[in-house]
């Protein structure tokens, strides 16, 4: 299969708008689960408003949240795919810019020093385009994530040392969730990266924060910490919007990587309740949203 740049451009545009309007089914089910478990009256009202908002967005064909986020595209290229990588990344960038101008969408992207907004949702190194490979035959998967800033500002890295152990990792996560309170728009998905280098650790936290609900860390030790912390954060009483209640997080997600004998890094990256993502597969048969 040869990857067609025009198809990639159209898809990059469509996925941005689709991600902003339709919440994935796993997140909708997450709301049902949290609502069933919630006992606090204010928290139940707030969860009800969030669920109503999902329906209003669908009914009025509107964006779920005004924050169009930092655009992230995760491209996974399978086997027996011929592609021009430069043309592909340029096509994604054009698609992102066209979604912004043609829908139109608020451009939430500025130069980091001048703070100038080009009104395109693009800038230096933005959109973020992550390219990876897998063994699916003649398949290209593109996932689009508009990462909202309220929760992205809830990002933390600590280069702990081996003597601190896994205890310090858990303490770090709990303390950061308390520190963030309502600012990160709970109920959240708390993404935790453990291990790697500083940059990989932060990236692991982002992978964890944007992983579908219902998935589990592939490493058994990571999965164990994931389960323990998921229970613990909902005992804090922070609740939806930080106004009290059980539903502080849908789940804590952990991703791990091997690290150095002298290192014990931990990172936190939070995803707000508007856990938006949209994905599609390109195969010889055409394009399908998944």
């Amino acid at each position, binding site marked *: 299969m040869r990857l067609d740049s025009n198809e990639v451009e159209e898809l990059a545009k469509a996925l941005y708008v689709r991600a902003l309007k339709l919440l994935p089914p796993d997140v909708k089910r997450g709301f049902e689960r949290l609502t069933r478990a919630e006992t606090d009256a204010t928290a139940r009202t707030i969860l009800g408003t969030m669920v109503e*908002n999902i329906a209003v967005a669908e009914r009025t064909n509107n964006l*779920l949240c005004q924050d169009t986020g930092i655009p992230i595209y995760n491209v996974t290229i399978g086997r027996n795919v011929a592609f021009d990588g430069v043309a592909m990344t340029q096509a994604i960038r054009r698609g992102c810019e066209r979604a912004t101008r043609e829908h139109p969408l608020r451009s939430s992207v500025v130069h980091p020093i001048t703070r100038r907004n080009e009104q395109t949702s693009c800038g230096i190194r933005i959109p973020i385009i992550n390219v990876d490979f897998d063994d699916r035959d003649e398949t290209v998967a593109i996932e689009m994530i508009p990462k909202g800033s309220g929760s992205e500002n809830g990002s933390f890295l600590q280069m702990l040392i081996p003597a601190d152990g896994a205890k310090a990792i858990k303490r770090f996560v709990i303390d950061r969730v308390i520190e963030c309170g309502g*600012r990160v*728009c709970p109920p959240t998905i708390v993404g935790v990266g453990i291990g790697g280098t500083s940059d990989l650790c932060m990236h692991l936290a982002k992978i964890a924060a944007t992983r579908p609900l219902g998935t589990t860390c592939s490493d058994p030790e990571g999965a164990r910490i994931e389960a323990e912390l998921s229970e613990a954060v909902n005992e*804090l009483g922070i609740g939806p919007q930080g106004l009290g209640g059980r539903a502080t997080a849908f789940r804590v997600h952990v991703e791990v990587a091997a690290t150095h004998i002298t290192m014990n890094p931990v990172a936190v990256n939070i995803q707000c309740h508007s856990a938006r993502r949209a994905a599609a597969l390109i195969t010889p048969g055409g394009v399908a949203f998944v």
Partner: protein
Amino acid sequence: MAHHVLDLPVSEAQVRALRIGDTATLEGTLFGIRDATLIAMFDGGRTTRFDLKGHAVVHTAPNVRKIEPQPGNACPYEPLCIGTTTSMRMERFTRPLMSRDGVRLVIGKGGMGPATLDAFRDLGGAYLAVVGGAAALETTWIEAIEDVDMDDLHPESLWKFRIKGFGPLLVTMDSHGGSLHADVNAAALARRDAILAKLGA
């Protein structure tokens, strides 16, 4: 736990009657403001042609569509999606916004800190919480964009919205030193050690 319907602008007495746990619905006019607007106003010394005295500001930057000016509405924008951003980044601007421009109510999400609470007590103000991330719903409470100032900062301009039934909002910070955000934070910190012990941490 009273419900208040507030026609903007409001008086100091109306604002001081608000208590945490009360709810409120806003009617009339609402101004949209955020990071770049406030930085320009208070670090850059810019002023607005809008009269904000007794008014409410919402922490936002909207999604809008450019349109031809309509009869009876000279503003060249229509609202597409308007929602509320995290307030805490704007903490240092609450006092000057109240003392210089006369703002009485701040609408936001996530709450604000001690400097804002002090300003509310000294000058007569309150914070009303929107459910963040519920922007499609919030947009249905906005009838039109009436006007815009400082639009060189677009989308972080100073927006004038005409609203109808904007709410219900929850009063989470009042002029009597009450803050639900501080209460929830204190309760979480009180539970921290027991939770860490259970985790063996």
